C-alpha cells in the first residue's frame, strides 16, 4: 500500500484533492468516505446497497446506464448524440472488446454531469456490480485540473495495474461493500459458523447484493474479518526455471529434460491480520501431496482439513509451523482454498 502512495499519479491526485499526510492512499480513501458521509447525512433512509447507490449517484450527478443488448446500445448512442454529445458515438467501437466492461463519460454540458455506461452484454454482466462502483469511485476523485493532467485509459489485468485504477478499485471496494450495511451480515455469518467459509461468503453475497460476484464478495469478507485468512488458488504450473527451459527450446532437444507441470500456488490474497501474523505462501510454491488442496485437485470433491504449514517446503526450506484450517474446492480452473489461522 505504501508503494502505491508514492506513485506520481497518486501524489497528483492527492494534491488535487488537497489530501496530505504520511499515507496518501489512506488519505484519499478517507476523503471519499467523508464525501459519502456528507451525502448520507442528507438521506436518512439508506438501508441497503441499492439505496446507497441511488443517493450517491444523485449527489454526484452520475447517471448509470446498463447496456444489455446491441439494440440498447444503439438507442443509447442516438439519445446522447442527439442531446449534443457526439463522443458517445465511440461506444460501439469502444465496448466491442470482451475485455471492456464500462466507460465513464462527462457530458459536454457540465450541468448534465456524468454518464457511466456499464456493459452487461454476454459474460460482462458477471462484473456489472463492481464495474458500477468502480465508475462511481472515479467520480469521487475527479477534479478538473487533475483530469487534464492525467487523462488515462487503464487496465486491470496481467501487466502492472495502473495506480489510478488500483486506488479506484480500493475506493470502489469501500463503498460497494459499505461497512455499515455489509458488516452486520458478515458478523452474523461468523457468529453462526465460527469462521468464514466459502458457503458463508455465498450466504453473505445473497443477503447483501446478489449482483455482486462471488470473488469480489470473498475479497470484501476476507478483508474485513479479524481472523488471519490467506486465500489461495492452485493449478498445474511450471516454476520459473522450468518455464525458462521450455521457452528456450532446450527441452525439445533432450526430451527427458522436458519438465512436467505440477500443482502450484498460482495466486494468493490475504488480509491484514494474516500479514501481521506472517501467514503467507509464495506464488509458484508446489502444493504438498499431503494437503487437502492436492486431494481436492484430484477428486474434485470439496473438503476441509487441519494442517500444519511446515509441511510446505521448497528447496529444503519449510514454511513456518502454523496450524491452519484449510477449506478447498474446485475453481474455474484448479483449486481455490481458504486457509484460516487459529
Amino acid at each position: 500500500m505504501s508503494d502505491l502512495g508514492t506513485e506520481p499519479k497518486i501524489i497528483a491526485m492527492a494534491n488535487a484533492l488537497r489530501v496530505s499526510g504520511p499515507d496518501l492512499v489512506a488519505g484519499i480513501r478517507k476523503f471519499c468516505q467523508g464525501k459519502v458521509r456528507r451525502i448520507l447525512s442528507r438521506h436518512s433512509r439508506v438501508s441497503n446497497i441499492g439505496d446507497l447507490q441511488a443517493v450517491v449517484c444523485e449527489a454526484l450527478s452520475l447517471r448509470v446506464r446498463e447496456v444489455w443488448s446491441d439494440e440498447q446500445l444503439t438507442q443509447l448512442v442516438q439519445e446522447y448524440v442527439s442531446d449534443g454529445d457526439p463522443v458517445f458515438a465511440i461506444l460501439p467501437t469502444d465496448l466491442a472488446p470482451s475485455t471492456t466492461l464500462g466507460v465513464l463519460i462527462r457530458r459536454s454540458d457540465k450541468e448534465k454531469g456524468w454518464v457511466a455506461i456499464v456493459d452487461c452484454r454476454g459474460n460482462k454482466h458477471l462484473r456489472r456490480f463492481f464495474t458500477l462502483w468502480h465508475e462511481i469511485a472515479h467520480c469521487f476523485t475527479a477534479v478538473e485540473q487533475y483530469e487534464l493532467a492525467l487523462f488515462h485509459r487503464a487496465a486491470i489485468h496481467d501487466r502492472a495495474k495502473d495506480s489510478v485504477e488500483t486506488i479506484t478499485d480500493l475506493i470502489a471496494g469501500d463503498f460497494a461493500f459499505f461497512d455499515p450495511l455489509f458488516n452486520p451480515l458478515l458478523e452474523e455469518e461468523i457468529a453462526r459458523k465460527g469462521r468464514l467459509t466459502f458457503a458463508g461468503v455465498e450466504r453473505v453475497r445473497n443477503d447483501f447484493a446478489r449482483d455482486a460476484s462471488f470473488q469480489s464478495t470473498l475479497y470484501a469478507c476476507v478483508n474485513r474479518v479479524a481472523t488471519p485468512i490467506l486465500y489461495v488458488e492452485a493449478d498445474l504450473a511450471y516454476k520459473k526455471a522450468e518455464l525458462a527451459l521450455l521457452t528456450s527450446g532446450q527441452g525439445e532437444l533432450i526430451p527427458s529434460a522436458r519438465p512436467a507441470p505440477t500443482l502450484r500456488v498460482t495466486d494468493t490474497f490475504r488480509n491484514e491480520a494474516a500479514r501481521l501474523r506472517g501467514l503467507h505462501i509464495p506464488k509458484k510454491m508446489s502444493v504438498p501431496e499431503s494437503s487437502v488442496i492436492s486431494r481436492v485437485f484430484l477428486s474434485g470433491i470439496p473438503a476441509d482439513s487441519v494442517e500444519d504449514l511446515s509441511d510446505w517446503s521448497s528447496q529444503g526450506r519449510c514454511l513456518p509451523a502454523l496450524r491452519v484450517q484449510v477449506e478447498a474446492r474446485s475453481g474455474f480452473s484448479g483449486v481455490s482454498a481458504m486457509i484460516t489461522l487459529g
Partner: protein
Amino acid sequence: MQSLGQTIKTLRGARGWTLEELYQASGVSKGFLSDLENGKRLNVGSSTLLRLADAFGVPVESLMEGGVQVPPDLEKFALEQKLSFAETLTLLKMSRQIHAHRDRARFDDDPFDWKQFYEAVKSFLK
C-alpha cells in the same frame, strides 16, 4: 501557464505557419507578432485578440487561458488527415470527455487510437 505569446507561437507552430502566413490570416503585423511571441509585448487589445482567435479558428478564451496543448500523436494524426485546427481541438475536447475505461486488456501506456476515435465521431466534427 503559458503566456499569450507562447500560446500564439504554439498554435502557429502546430499549423506550420510562418509569421508572414499568420499576418496574412489575421492582419496583425509581423513585427507585432514577433514581439508578442518573444515576450517583448505583453498588452494586447481585444480587437487584435479577436483577429488572432479568428485566424486560428479558436475561441478567444483559449488564447487567454494559456492555450491548448495538443498531444503530439493527435497533432501527427491531424496533419495526416488534414484536419483543421478547430476540428483537431474538437476531437481533443471530445476525447477528454471520456474520463475512464474499465478494461481488462488495455493498458495505460497503450497509445490512444485517434484514427478509430476520429472514424466514430468525424461526421460530427464539421
